[in-house]
């Protein structure tokens, strides 16, 4: 399953994605019961106007209520979907050459999907994943950004979860992004 989280309020990006994915033969997760055939599914979460607070670094999700974030807002629904996702695509506005804070908050709040425990994996010290599901990361941005840096960052962010980067694309490169979806 592909999970697409749109942190912008620009619905034309997700409309374009939707159209491209349908062309590719994907179906939306919630409509996947029609003909009984297994299809690759995707789900789009419009998070641009949802309440998603920043991570406050309390560490409760590691040490007090393992796997559960102490902040009660609209993020929990996204987190629950992530543990079933093969791919997570975040759509974000940019600021100061990077993602804007709404986009970054989606990543900062992923921490409940890791445990407190650490190990060395290849060249990196990493937290263990809490769930078996491995989720690769893709990024679609809207606005000016330091793209080379974003690509590097997305790769590193994915590494935290022993996953890989699916690439970084501007909103004008939706077709290219869709070629990297499953």
């Amino acid at each position, binding site marked *: 399953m592909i999970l697409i989280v749109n942190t912008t309020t620009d619905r034309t990006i997700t409309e374009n994605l939707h159209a491209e994915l349908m062309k590719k033969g994907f179906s939306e997760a919630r409509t996947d019961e029609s003909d009984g055939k297994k299809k690759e599914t995707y789900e789009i979460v419009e998070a641009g106007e949802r309440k998603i607070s*920043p*991570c*406050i*670094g*309390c560490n*409760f999700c*590691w*040490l*007090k*209520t*393992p*796997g*559960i974030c102490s902040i009660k807002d609209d993020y929990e629904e996204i*987190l*629950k979907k992530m*543990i079933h996702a093969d791919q997570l695509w975040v759509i974000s506005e940019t*600021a*100061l*050459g*990077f*993602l*804007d*804070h*709404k986009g*970054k*908050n989606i*990543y*900062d709040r*992923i921490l409940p999907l890791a*445990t*407190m*425990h*650490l*190990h*060395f994996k290849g*060249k*990196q*010290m990493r937290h*263990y994943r*809490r*769930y078996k599901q491995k989720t690769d990361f893709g990024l679609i941005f809207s606005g000016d950004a*330091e793209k080379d*840096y974003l690509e*590097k*960052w997305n790769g*590193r*962010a994915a590494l*935290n979860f022993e996953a890989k980067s699916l690439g970084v694309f501007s909103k004008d490169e939706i077709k290219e992004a869709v070629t990297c979806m499953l």
Partner: protein
Amino acid sequence: MHALIINGSPRVKKYSNTDKILEKILLGMKESGSTGELYEISDRKQWEEIREKFYHFDHILIAIPLFVECIPGLLLEFLETIPARSTDRKPVLSFLLQSGFAEGCQLRCGEEYLQILSGKLGCEYGGTLVKGNNFSIRLVEGSDREKIVLPYKEMGKIYGKEGNFFSVDCKKFTGPEQFPGWVRVLVGLMFKTLAKKSFEKTAKEWGCSKSLKDRPYA
């Protein structure tokens, strides 16, 4: 030198590891005859004052805990609201980047962004003091905490004197970029024994009754 010092951690001051580090930086600065005004991003009530003062200092230091390879969302939210520089004064913006991960290589991606960020904010880059292995600052007290934070005083002295983190001593302060193989084996063993026990002890003290590997949404 009189610097604007911003704790960029979203964690409240009382439990902020970055705050404990900055206490020592400020002590060191004082020994060099410098001073600093400390503000906390975790307290939104302070944002307006920091915004007003931002371009009125020649030196700004932002101290940051590494959050998913870069700066925390809350700090980003604040920085997005800083108005473009309208004065001729171009402050030297330096950073202190700290993390739980111990090896220097873990912080380089975040460090790379900080150089980009200083340019975007119209400041001159004053370098980044990079140091890991700070996760337990909030979990320990007394001499155990001092052992971790005291070395930052020396770095504060250098910052107070030079107004940046470009010196060789600041670069060395990071420690090993990557542990040698035998250290990795030892540290790996420590994760499975001592560290595991210590985390479980903390969890119990915090009222946790579940396994730290619990899968609540499985």
